[in-house]
């Protein structure tokens, strides 16, 4: 890399974290803040009760707009990806051997894929419970 010597990045990929993973993490971070804000406003301020929690009927009604399952699916993909790349970064600090690291990576990828599949399934099931 040809960065001038006067410029030293304060943060960047951890050792063992590829630049791609790091880039995904810093792109999904701000994206999450936007989707999370939407998610919280809708779930806690647009329900029919004053308690701030949506009733079952509220949730089903909310999911009838096709945009909503789409946003929630995007949310689950982004948040699971961000959190598991972050978790991998923390595990990297334990200085695992290459072999252990590749097992960790595969386990986290499996956990991520399963969680996303579950999230998509759940969003579609909820949407299908409408009238």
């Amino acid at each position: 890399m040809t960065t001038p010597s006067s410029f030293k990045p304060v943060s960047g990929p951890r050792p063992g974290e590829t630049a791609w993973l790091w880039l995904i993490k810093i792109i999904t971070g701000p994206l999450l803040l936007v989707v999370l804000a939407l998610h919280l406003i809708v779930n806690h301020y647009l329900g029919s009760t004053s308690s701030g929690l949506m009733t079952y009927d509220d949730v089903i009604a909310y999911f009838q707009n096709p945009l909503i399952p789409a946003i929630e699916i995007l949310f689950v993909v982004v948040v699971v990806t961000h959190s598991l790349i972050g978790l991998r970064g923390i595990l990297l600090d334990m200085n695992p051997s290459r072999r252990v690291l590749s097992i960790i990576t595969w386990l986290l990828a499996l956990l991520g894929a399963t969680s996303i599949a579950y999230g998509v399934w759940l969003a579609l099931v909820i949407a299908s419970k409408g009238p």
Partner: protein
Amino acid sequence: MNNQPSSKKFLAWFNPLGRQPGSWAFILSRITALGLTFYLFLHLVVLGRLAQGPQAYQEFLALAESPIVKLGELAVIAAVIYHGLNGIRIILTSFGIGVAHQQRLFYASVALALAGTVFFGIRLFGG
């Protein structure tokens, strides 16, 4: 080699003395990351009740009104605000923006997280 792990260094993780603000920012970011990851999977599992029908979900809502769960939710709020703002700070400084102010940005992240916690704490527990 100074960058090799050792059990002595592991214990040093828990020594609060002699740390710079940047070290505290890092530790808080770590703790909130682990907490939020735990919450994320808990949240996904619990919301599975929506697939089981109205009664199963209603039981969960009743549980969500209990003070302990509300306290947990408040911790999630505090963690989200801090982790999000500190994350923005790290991204900015990664690209060389605001590096001179990074310590103040960290204190601002903590202050806003505390303010948000108080605000939502009143909303959650203030009746």
